């Protein structure tokens, strides 16, 4: 047994895919806590429901594809997709929204393209966009942050939340409200200062928008943890955030009624931080080289701002990421690093000379 043929290297680092995926799941916890604190139990229910759906559907489709089920389930990639989708969906949305979104993510966006490593688009965002377009009412109803609930009203408790998710057809009144990005979209004719004064979402906030700022900071914290554990490099997230900040600075227009909002508001609203650290860092569907990821990240930042400011949807991370997924292979062709011993960067499309 000792004398056998094995290829080098014989030593192997401690990292493995399952551990990386688990780490990503753990890193969402600050964001999940912030969401739960400010918006109630809905997000946690989303995450758990999506995870169960994802694991069951992945197991079934692996079986249908004649793949070893436990080997592939063990990579935790389905759980990561489900957790990210669950976090992106509105808290207390009906259970079938979560299930449809997750099924679409896992079965169609991932497994039908060949499974882990072969999906050209971010599975979670495909699922998100499918339910966003299909069920606009359910998808645009957000729970109001805790701080803005009327005196004496609280978020439904856990059991009540479950009841709402599984049995209530219509979203409850009283606890729903607009998001900061909604407010800007629908506050035509007002200057930024007027919006900030009138809307308690901003007037009671510390940096950007009540509740949302903490959710974004939570995801930022998780993102920094992943960055420090070298799960991904800084290039994509930083490029996206810088591009988003720069775009909002350029179009700030000194806070006039035409202004789409301040850089800080954009960075700490909607899915900015979650997108930057958890969505566009999906390595399978992003560009590969450092320069490629800089371009890819910046493209997402710019698209997010454009769609938020002039598009039909208040937030845009999902659309921006999917559009950028299309460009990733193209970006890869022109962003090869300079190899040792070469004076120039080469293009992937370079033809060999005969």
């Amino acid at each position: 047994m000792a004398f056998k043929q094995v290829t080098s290297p014989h030593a192997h680092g401690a990292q493995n895919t399952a551990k990386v995926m688990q780490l990503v799941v753990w890193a969402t916890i600050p964001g999940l806590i912030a969401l739960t604190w400010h918006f109630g139990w809905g997000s946690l229910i989303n995450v758990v429901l999506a995870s169960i759906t994802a694991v069951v559907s992945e197991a079934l489709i692996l079986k249908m594809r004649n793949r070893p089920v436990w080997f592939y389930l063990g990579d935790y990639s389905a759980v990561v997709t489900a957790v990210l989708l669950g976090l992106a969906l509105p808290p207390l949305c009906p259970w079938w929204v979560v299930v449809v979104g997750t099924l679409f993510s896992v079965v169609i966006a991932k497994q039908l393209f060949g499974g882990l490593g072969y999906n050209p688009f971010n599975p979670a965002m495909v699922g998100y966009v499918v339910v966003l377009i299909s069920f606009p009412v359910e998808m645009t109803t957000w729970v109001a942050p805790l701080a803005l609930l009327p005196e004496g009203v609280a978020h439904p408790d856990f059991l009540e939340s479950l009841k709402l998710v599984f049995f209530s057809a219509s979203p409850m009144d009283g606890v729903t409200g607009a998001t900061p990005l909604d407010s800007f979209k629908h506050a035509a004719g007002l200057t930024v200062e007027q919006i900030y004064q009138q809307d308690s979402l901003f007037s009671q906030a510390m940096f950007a928008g009540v509740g949302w700022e903490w959710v974004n900071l939570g995801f930022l914290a998780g993102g920094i943890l992943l960055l420090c554990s070298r799960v991904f490099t800084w290039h994509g997230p930083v490029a996206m955030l810088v591009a988003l900040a720069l775009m909002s600075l350029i179009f700030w227009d000194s806070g006039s009624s035409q202004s789409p909002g301040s850089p800080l508001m954009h960075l700490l609203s909607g899915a900015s931080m979650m997108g930057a650290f958890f969505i566009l860092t999906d390595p399978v569907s992003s560009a590969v080289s450092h320069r490629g990821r800089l371009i890819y990240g910046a493209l997402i930042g710019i698209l997010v701002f454009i769609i938020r400011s002039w598009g039909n949807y208040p937030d845009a991370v999902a659309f921006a990421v999917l559009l950028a997924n299309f460009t990733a292979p193209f970006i890869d062709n022109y962003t090869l690093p300079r190899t040792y011993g070469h004076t120039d960067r080469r293009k992937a499309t370079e033809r060999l000379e005969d």
Partner: protein
Amino acid sequence: MRQTWVTPGGVHPPENKDQSLTQPIGSLPIPEKLVVPLGQHIGAPAIACVTVGDRVLKGQKIADPAGTISAAIHAPTSGTITAIEARPVAHSSGMNALCVEITSDGKDQWIDKSGISDFEHTSPKALLSIITEAGIAGMGGAGFPTSVKLNPGFKRPIDTLIINATECEPYITADDSLIRERAEEIVEGIRILSHILGNPHNIMIGIENNKPEAIKALEPHTKDTGINVVSFPAKYPSGGEKQLIYILTGKELPSGNIPADIGMLCVNIGTTHAIKRAVVDGEPLVSRVTTMTGEACEINRNYDVLIGTPVEHLLNHNNFDAQRCSRVIMGGPMMGFSLTSKLIPIVKTTNCILAPSVEEIPHNEPAQPCIRCGMCAEACPASLLPQQLLWYSQAKDHERLQSHNLFDCIECGACSYVCPSNIPLVQHYRSSKSDIKKAQEEKVKSTQARERFEFRQQRIELAEKEREAKRAARREAAKQAKASSGTDSMADIVAAAQARTAAKKTSPEQELAKLERAVSSAEMRVQKAQDKLDTASANSETDEKINILSAALSGAQQKLEKAKTRLAEHSN
């Protein structure tokens, strides 16, 4: 402290060097049989110059180099040649190759050694031939014949000599312990090298800073010699030639070039020791320091091992436990290859035998799909994109592989080391490289075949054209003849034929000479026939024979008469 440069990428696997450094370099009893492969270096295998049954002394040459890029092989101990045949050798493919087996007589009796004490007054050419004769090949791993490397030609003057003492692979401590114990000899070897190369002004020993004792050991000997000991932070693979050049000089070796092209030369520190032994002590390369380590062996230490010692001998003397061992590796855990037989011998490039336990180096896990996480690209010292190379390697897209600089991959294994999906990336690259090389060779072959075919077609066409032209000319002549036959009378044709015959006739003088020759030769034949008849009758042969001979005589006489008549006719 000299400036050093930092290479991109690299990994920090656990070093595991301490366990083999607790004891000094040891020696093993001489094995009963030594198996010395004829190909221990890059280039053509040497050609055996002994035959089975010959008695050899330690250090006696047993194989001559075959051509320029080759190296001589010497008997590692005294004894008798008992076999010259194919045996399993140290190669990643686990192949067999021609080896010389020596049965030791236990005396370990040296040949007459003749060293040179003042190499400074010996010509570089003479020193180079000593190194050639001593069969020295790079001892760091590749095994390139040293005398070839040291002779880059006057067009490539060497101004920087780099001595590679990096030893960046985990577990291996052969160079480290060699420096600790034999620093003086090493420095003398470097001075010989420097003399051969015309004293390059920049001589550096590159060493990782995890070997403080070795660095200290070198200090007293390198003082005021112009040799700089340059240490830098440990990182795998700093010891790669290209990486070391960058770390020490900040220059990159252009792709496809050798260091001599940019005035540099890299020599492993073990090689300098062998050079000193060859030049000063007159000892050819018959032994080397090899690390024996890994948890499956009770004793971990360095040994001065005779070339040709079977791995089994080394393992047995260190209480090897095959049950605990996951694999036996020749070389380090990053670039070494697993051995398929315990009979494989130690060769000039064997710096380590690693016998790890299953806990130390577990069995390989099945590969998961690549998620393009990019950890490999972060680890790659050559700034390649291993994840893309894998993709194109699986797709067999040779063009993309080459535009992604596959051939700049040094196969260090850093990418596979970090890969969270346990993908044997390097193996994919090796296989793609050989596929591409094979495809290129086939392309050359098919181009040649096509050219040959085209040339043949051309030749056939040309011949056909020539034939056609001839046929046309003949047709034309026939047509003309036909046309003229209409006008000319029959008499003209006969006259023309007669004229042709007349033209063919020879002159009367020639005719006369010809007839005279005919007469004289006929006379000769008559004479011969007469002689034969006389001897036959004298020996009283049978009547039948005598009749035949007399008939032949009369025939010859008739011919003579005829010739004489014709001569007479002509003369008239």
